[in-house]
């Protein structure tokens, strides 16, 4: 039974595109991989749901191409596209907060999935940190979607990021502490999210069971 469409969450694409993607998964060298990478990036920037999941399909295509003919065409196009969007991130943010948040989610997802020999891609580490630092700036903390995005990414890849560059993580958390303590105009939800992530990291990238109860249990009156 073919379960690739569920695994890779490509339901949001039109039928023809889904076909193309399925072919790319099975037989990468038979398709235009630059086109495929653009399709995936474009969708990730538009669709918050897909931006969280695109990493898996990208990884599979990268692996597939490598196995087939040791190729790196797809990966190269994907990364260069990511780089291009990274350069324009400030304009993207001004134009559309959602697109910016999708971008960060996407690049972090790629960072999570696209590993080489179980090691994260060196080229992405500083850019990912730059994105997270941007989300921790005073003006960004005022927007709940940005705070939410920030803490989500830290939950997913914080530990890995810290392992490859702890100094930057320290700097990020200086900003988060300052934001939590000093930033005026934060919503209480934003403060809650920040407090939780501060505790999460302090606990070694996990919450104690009591802290978990505090943040995640249903409150009964």
């Amino acid at each position, binding site marked *: 039974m073919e379960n690739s469409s569920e695994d890779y969450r490509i339901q949001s694409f039109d039928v023809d595109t889904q076909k193309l993607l399925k072919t790319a998964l099975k037989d990468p060298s038979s398709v235009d991989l630059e086109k495929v990478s653009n399709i995936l990036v474009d969708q990730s920037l538009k669709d918050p749901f897909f931006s969280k999941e695109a990493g898996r399909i990208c990884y599979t295509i990268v692996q597939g191409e490598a196995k087939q003919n040791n190729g*790196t065409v797809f990966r190269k196009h*994907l990364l260069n596209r990511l780089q291009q969007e990274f350069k324009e991130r400030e304009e993207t943010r001004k134009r559309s907060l959602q697109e910016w948040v999708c971008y960060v989610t996407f690049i972090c997802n790629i960072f999570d999935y696209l590993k080489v020999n179980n*090691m994260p891609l060196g080229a992405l580490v500083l850019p990912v940190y730059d994105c997270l630092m941007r989300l921790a700036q005073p003006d960004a903390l005022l927007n709940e979607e940005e705070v939410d995005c920030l803490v989500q990414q830290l939950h997913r890849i914080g530990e890995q990021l810290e392992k490859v*560059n*702890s*100094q930057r993580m320290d*700097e990020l958390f200086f900003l988060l502490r300052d934001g939590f303590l000093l930033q005026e105009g934060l919503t209480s939800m934003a403060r809650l999210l920040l407090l939780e992530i501060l505790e999460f990291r302090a606990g070694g990238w996990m919450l104690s069971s009591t802290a978990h109860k505090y943040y995640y249990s249903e409150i009964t009156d």
Partner: protein
Amino acid sequence: MSHRSGAPRTESRRSFRSSGPSRWSQSRKRGIDGNLRSHSDDDDAAADEGLYGGRQSSFRTPESAGPVARCARRPDWGSQVEDEEEMRKDVHRDMQRYRRRILGSEPGQRERRASSGSSGSCDSREGETMETDEAVLMRRQKQISYGKNTLAYDRYIKEVPKHLRQPGVHPKTPNKFRKYSRRSWDQQIKLWRVKLHAWDPPAGGNQENSLSDNIEELDLEDMVDIELDFPTLADPQDAPSSSVVEDQDCSATPVKVQKTEDPSVA
């Protein structure tokens, strides 16, 4: 924790803080509270400016002009990842070669090596205590490549053939497979780069003058420590297995370097 006072103090605290931790704080022995810092050598193994960013490149030499590099790092992410992959393969291949050399040597040769000043380590044990952490090796290899990717290095290897190299006088590439602390390794790289500057192209002046100038700048104490870490191995020289590819391909790991990942080669 005491209650925070009003705006002015927090403002100034924040502006101080916004500059981030001191650039050099990582290399200080004691923290600001006076206590010894734990040197998480392996934790920040990958936190190098070259590979994963972070820690300042404390291995830069004091030269004002800076090293003359042959070519720059490729700017696009796609290429950077490819270069990284290639470097990883090189490191693994070097590791195999090194292991074979160290573990596969004759008993006679082993004795000779042990008596030539190595700090007591028997070579049959060296294979077991060699550095194998990929992140560490990658970071070190990157540092070595920076040094070899210079005109000074090119001129040096052309000018001084291996059999004429004198320990202490001629620069010798640090052996990335030996166990060293982070600090010791970075110091070795620093000293090696400084020594290589003696071969900088014309503006650098006469070889002898530059060397003595550089040596004066160094803290003698550092030099003494480092010399002990640099045991001279009277190794049988391997014949290079692949030919030198003299192309102009500008990658982070120059192709030229790849043939000689023989740790005893400067």
